[in-house]
C-alpha cells in the first residue's frame, strides 16, 4: 500500500489529507499521480504540484514501492 498525502487546496478539494493506493509492483511517481486522479477525480493544481517521496522532493520518473509515502506539495506560502 502507498500512502498519499495532500495539503492546502489539494486536501480541501479532495475532502481528505490521506488517500491509500494499492500497488503490486513498483511504479513511477507519475503513475501514482494518474492512479490518484482515477481514484478521487481531478484536482486543480495537482499537475503543477511538487512531489515528495518519503519526505524528499523527487521527479516524475522516480520509483515508488509498497510502503512508501507520496506527498503532493502545492506552491508553498510559509513565512
Amino acid at each position, binding site marked *: 500500500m502507498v500512502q498519499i498525502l495532500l*495539503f*492546502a487546496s489539494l486536501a480541501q478539494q479532495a475532502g481528505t489529507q490521506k488517500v491509500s493506493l494499492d500497488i503490486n509492483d513498483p511504479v513511477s511517481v507519475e503513475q501514482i499521480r494518474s492512479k490518484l486522479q482515477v481514484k478521487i477525480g481531478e484536482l486543480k493544481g495537482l499537475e*503543477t504540484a*511538487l512531489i515528495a517521496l518519503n519526505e524528499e522532493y523527487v521527479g516524475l520518473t522516480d520509483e515508488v514501492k509498497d510502503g512508501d509515502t507520496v506527498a503532493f506539495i502545492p506552491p*508553498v*506560502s*510559509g513565512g
Partner: protein
Amino acid sequence: MKLYNITSEPINNQDVIDKVIHHNSGAVSVFIGTVREMTDEKKTRYLEYEAYVPMAEKQLEKIGEEIKVKWPDAKTAITHRIGTLQISDTAVTIAVSTPHRQDAFEASRYAIERIKEIVPIWKKEHYTDGEEWVGNQKGTESYPLGHPEGVE
C-alpha cells in the same frame, strides 16, 4: 535543543535567539514574520498555517546547512508556527549568529527567502470577504523551472 522547529504554540523569540548565541558569536540577526492585516485592499481577519511537519523540519534543517556552506561560522535556528494565527502574531522567527554583523544580516535574509521556496508550509488567508490558500487558489501558479530553485 531543536534548532529547526514547527510548532503549534506561540513562538517565544528569545528562546530562538538563545539557541544561536555562543562564545564566538559577535552578531545575531533576527527575522520575525508577523501576521499583517491589510494586503492591498483586502483585510485579513486571521490566518491558518498548515505544514507537512516532518518534511518541513527537514527542509528548515537543509536551509541551515546551506547557510553553513555560504557562511561557515554561522549558527541558525528557525521556528515556524502553524495553526490559527491572529493579526500581529509571530508566524516565523529566524535567528542567525555569526562572528561579524554583515554575514548575520545576509544569512537571515537568505533563510526567509528559502523558506518561501522550499519548505512545505501553506497559509490560508481568512479575509473579511472570503478565504483562500495563498499561492495556489487558482491552481494556475507554477514553478518556471518545474521546481523551486535549488531543489533537484
